[in-house]
């Protein structure tokens, strides 16, 4: 009966109840929907970061991380891989690359960039270049002077497929070396910065140009599950104990992203609290209004012998029902919206140039995390009830004599 009375009381002033509910709905809705969008952005940043020639785990020759010079190299990548293959979980992929800072130039332009020597067959599923090219063709394993460049670089250099591009760098003997390549293909990335940063040639031609014999600069390993990175990196490290190789995870290589992800959970809590504070003012005000309007009634209940604790509870039950209905509707709306957006992704291209700068692509797929949904509901229900204690206590303290004087 207590519940039934609360239910009837809630609908005595439907307009007011609906207003609180809408506040709760909007609050929960924004909490969940926007958080899953932000999570989608972060996941996208991570995927992109890992695909941009980083990998979950990277093996460098000792010294290369701090001084990416071609004088450091892994002499026999196959041997290294044979030693660590046991540490790989299922569906692990890897690629070994030559990587060197170079200057590209043609008749009109020149720019500093990273020359990457790859085995195209290895890159599938490991880095974005494994997805192939937009125009022209991909370099093949044995191409001697073919190069693939990014669309943005092509435009910047005012050149096109079939034209030449001169690459200049230091070789193993610290001599300046240069080589003329022919542009055979153009890749696209969601980030213009990536398109300008990297050019790709075959591993063998890079080794040849730089005098590396069979050496490579890095081995990049991609796992099916990012969560396993730490454990796999440890086993690799054990397997390679004693060799002069260094093992890094994406957390070491993308420190910004790592710290961003670390503060993200705290940021969500803060963000929920901010939304809640806005909501709480509405809840408290409206509940107080409702309590003062019913002062005579609370006085009557007191006169009849109802204990203050029971009155307090009855007011809390009322606000609990409103909160629960609002939270439920907010969840439905948010989850519905997230599912709709998840099907197609949401295009943020209007904001994209700014976002690209932050390493986010323009199409975002929201990621609904159960933990966030629980947190949003927890914040609304627990804190919602907590702030309702104030009007409830007011109601429980009204005395019959006061109530009678109040007409």
């Amino acid at each position: 009966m207590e519940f039934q009375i609360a239910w009837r009381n809630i609908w005595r002033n439907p307009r007011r109840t609906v207003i609180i509910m809408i506040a709760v709905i909007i609050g929960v809705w924004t909490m969940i929907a926007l958080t899953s969008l932000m999570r989608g952005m972060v996941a996208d940043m991570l995927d992109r970061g890992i695909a941009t020639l980083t990998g979950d785990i990277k093996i460098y020759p000792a010294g290369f991380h701090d001084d990416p010079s071609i004088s450091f190299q892994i002499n026999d990548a196959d041997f290294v891989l044979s030693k660590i293959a046991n540490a790989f979980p299922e569906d692990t992929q890897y690629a070994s690359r030559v990587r060197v800072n170079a200057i590209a130039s043609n008749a009109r332009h020149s720019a500093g960039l990273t020359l990457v020597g790859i085995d195209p067959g290895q890159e599938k599923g490991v880095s974005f270049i494994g997805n192939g090219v937009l125009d022209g063709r991909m370099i093949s394993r044995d191409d001697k002077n073919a190069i693939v460049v990014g669309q943005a670089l092509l435009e910047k250099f005012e050149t096109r497929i079939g034209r030449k591009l001169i690459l200049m760098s230091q070789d193993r003997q610290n001599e300046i070396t240069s080589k003329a390549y022919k542009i055979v293909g153009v890749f696209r990335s969601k980030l213009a910065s990536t398109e300008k940063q990297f050019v790709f040639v075959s591993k063998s031609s890079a080794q040849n140009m730089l005098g590396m014999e069979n050496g490579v600069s890095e081995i990049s390993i991609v796992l099916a599950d990012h969560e396993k990175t730490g454990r796999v990196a440890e086993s690799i490290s054990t397997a390679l104990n004693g060799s002069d190789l260094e093992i890094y995870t994406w957390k070491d290589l993308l420190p910004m992203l790592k710290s961003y992800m670390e503060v993200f959970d705290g940021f969500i809590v803060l963000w929920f609290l901010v939304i809640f504070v806005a909501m709480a003012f509405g809840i408290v005000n409206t509940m107080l209004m409702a309590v003062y309007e019913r002062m005579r009634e609370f006085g009557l209940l007191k006169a009849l012998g109802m204990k203050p604790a029971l009155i307090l509870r009855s007011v809390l039950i009322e606000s609990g029902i409103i909160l629960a209905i609002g939270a439920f509707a907010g969840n439905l709306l948010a989850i519905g919206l997230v599912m709709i957006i998840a099907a197609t992704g949401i295009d943020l291209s209007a904001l994209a140039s700014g976002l690209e700068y932050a390493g986010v692509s323009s199409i975002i797929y929201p990621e609904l995390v159960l933990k966030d949904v629980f947190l949003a509901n927890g914040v609304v229900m627990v804190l919602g009830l907590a702030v309702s204690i104030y009007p409830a206590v007011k109601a429980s303290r009204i005395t019959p004599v006061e109530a009678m004087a109040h007409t």
Partner: protein
Amino acid sequence: MPIVEVKGVDKVYHQGDTAVHALDNIHLSMDAGSFAAIAGPSGSGKTTLLNMIGGLDLPDHGDVIVDGRHFSEMNQSQLAQLRLNRIGFVFQAYNLIPVLSAVENVEYVMLLQGVEKAERRDRAMAMLDEVGLTEKYDNRPAELSGGQQQRVAVARAIVSNPAIVLADEPTANLDSKTGEGLLRIMAEMNERRNVTFIFSTHDKMVMDYAHRLVLLRDGMIDDDRSK
């Protein structure tokens, strides 16, 4: 032994700089089964006195004893418990809980007392029958006339088997015919169940029904006679 005893009760209200002596050394005792009216001009202290007897307000000096319990020795929670089980109230207006139907209003005190659901409903319906409102049992207060609302309030006051029922100007908002109907119901209850009624009134007709008339003036008892 009297069911109600008021012993040297003083009550002073302060409003700004002026102090109003609402009750001034009141001594009064009522036997069980009384049907008593407290009368007097406006501001003479009728409501204040009833509030004291009901434990809704506490005296500055003196003590009130109802059903053998000394209010001065009780805390708020014990007073609430006493009101719930031993005292019924009928106010001038706003007696009923708007979201509850007539029968639910009558049931409500029994709910607070912990009476079981089936018994609650039976007793409430029987009570509504006694006040002649069987047909209106499912109506909300807003759908009842003033007189009907007061009858529901009387039913609620009595259903919990109280030692006393306090009614502060129960007929003040009713026309004289309806008021008399209500009074007759209360008188019947008094006779049949031996429930003690104490009510305040301005109304000559209501005073005529009372077996005892206490006249207040300026917070003091001016006259007290039994008929």
